[in-house]
Each structure stands twice: as structure tokens, then as C-alpha cells.
């Protein structure tokens, strides 16, 4: 069966510090991978998605970047965090090329920038 691991679960970082959130998927090959951010109790904002190694699409210009160094590894980074980067970050995967393919989410990372 497929599993998705996302860590850390919580993170408190000072303004101006770097960020690295990691997500890995097991049990499937060449998945589509996604990073979402969620404001408290609201819908999901797509930040980045990837359909293959080294292929990253950015949805929202901002202080963040993403990389996919391996087929089932997706990393969200920042060189210098801003207060506005605080939020709940979710990684997800889906089967490639299927129009109705649902997303399978990790348990998220709660990031607080102080």
C-alpha cells in the first residue's frame, strides 16, 4: 500500500531563518507531488506541484521554493522566512494523468515564524 511521510509535524522558526520541509512517498512510482498551505480552518492554497523529477511548477510567487531530487521525494524550502510564512503546510500525492485522481495527504507541518 502507498504511504506518505511528512516531517516535522511542528516547527517554530525565527524570522530570517532558513526552512526545509521534507515529504516522501512509498509504494508508488512517478506520482504527482504537491505542496499546499492552509490558513486556519480554511481551504487549501496550492504552492507547488511536480509531475516528475526536477519538474516544478510554482503557483504563487512568494518566499518559498520546491525541489524534487528523487522520484518520491519533495522538499519545500526558504532561504529567509517571513512572518507571513506561518501556516499549516501539507504535502500530497496523486496518480499521474488521471483527471479524477484524488489527492492523498500527509499529516502536515505546523510552521510558526516568530
Amino acid at each position, binding site marked *: 500500500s502507498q504511504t506518505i511521510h511528512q516531517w516535522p509535524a511542528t516547527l517554530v522558526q525565527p524570522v530570517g531563518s532558513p526552512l526545509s520541509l521534507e515529504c516522501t512517498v512509498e509504494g508508488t512510482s512517478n506520482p504527482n507531488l504537491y505542496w499546499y498551505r492552509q490558513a486556519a480552518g480554511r481551504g487549501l492554497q496550492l504552492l507547488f506541484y511536480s509531475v516528475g523529477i526536477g519538474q516544478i511548477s510554482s503557483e504563487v510567487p512568494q518566499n518559498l521554493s520546491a525541489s524534487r531530487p528523487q522520484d518520491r521525494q519533495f522538499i519545500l524550502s526558504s532561504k529567509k522566512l517571513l512572518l507571513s510564512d506561518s501556516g499549516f503546510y501539507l504535502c500530497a500525492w496523486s496518480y499521474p494523468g488521471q*483527471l479524477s485522481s484524488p*489527492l492523498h495527504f500527509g499529516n502536515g507541518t505546523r510552521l510558526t515564524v516568530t
Partner: protein
Amino acid sequence: TQLLEQSPQFLSIQEGENLTVYCNSSSVFSSLQWYRQEPGEGPVLLVTVVTGGEVKKLKRLTFQFGDARKDSSLHITAAQPGDTGLYLCAGPTTGTASKLTFGTGTRLQVTL
């Protein structure tokens, strides 16, 4: 830009009551998905509706896709505390098989 507006934004009811959550758009979607998210966790898929007018049932939850495929509803019968969570609808973004547009979310709280 495709938008999915959900209503109500927040709903607090007592155990045993019925409720309906709506997901509306001015755009046509090829399908719509419904997710439930509990605090501190990622959303989990409940159902996918594909055909206009389609009705799907999942125990006490009934999902309907509008005839014109621009809207969907989720009806819960005899709500229980375990139904508490954030309900999200989502549909494929036009022109891509890779992205979903998510709704604004409905937070449901069911109390004893």
C-alpha cells in the same frame, strides 16, 4: 479562474440533527471530490462524483453533483460528534489533469 465557494462557512449543530453543505461555482467541472479534515491532520477523500445529477451515499452522508456540473451538496443525516471536521470540495483545474481547485471549506462542529 475557477472558484469553488462553500456555504455555510461554519456550522454548529447538536447530535442527531440533519445538515447540508453546499459547494458552488460558475464554472463547469468534470468531477468533484469531497474531503474531510480533522484538526492537525491532512484531508481524507470521502467521495468523487463524476456524472451530472449523480447521487452517492456513504452511510449517513449523501453527496449530489448538480445536473450542470457546477455545484455539489453534502447532506448528513443524524449528525454525530465523529462528523466534526472541515469539509472541503475540490475539482480538477481546467486544462490540466494534475491540479485540483479546492473550495473555501465548511467547518462543522457536532455537539452532544
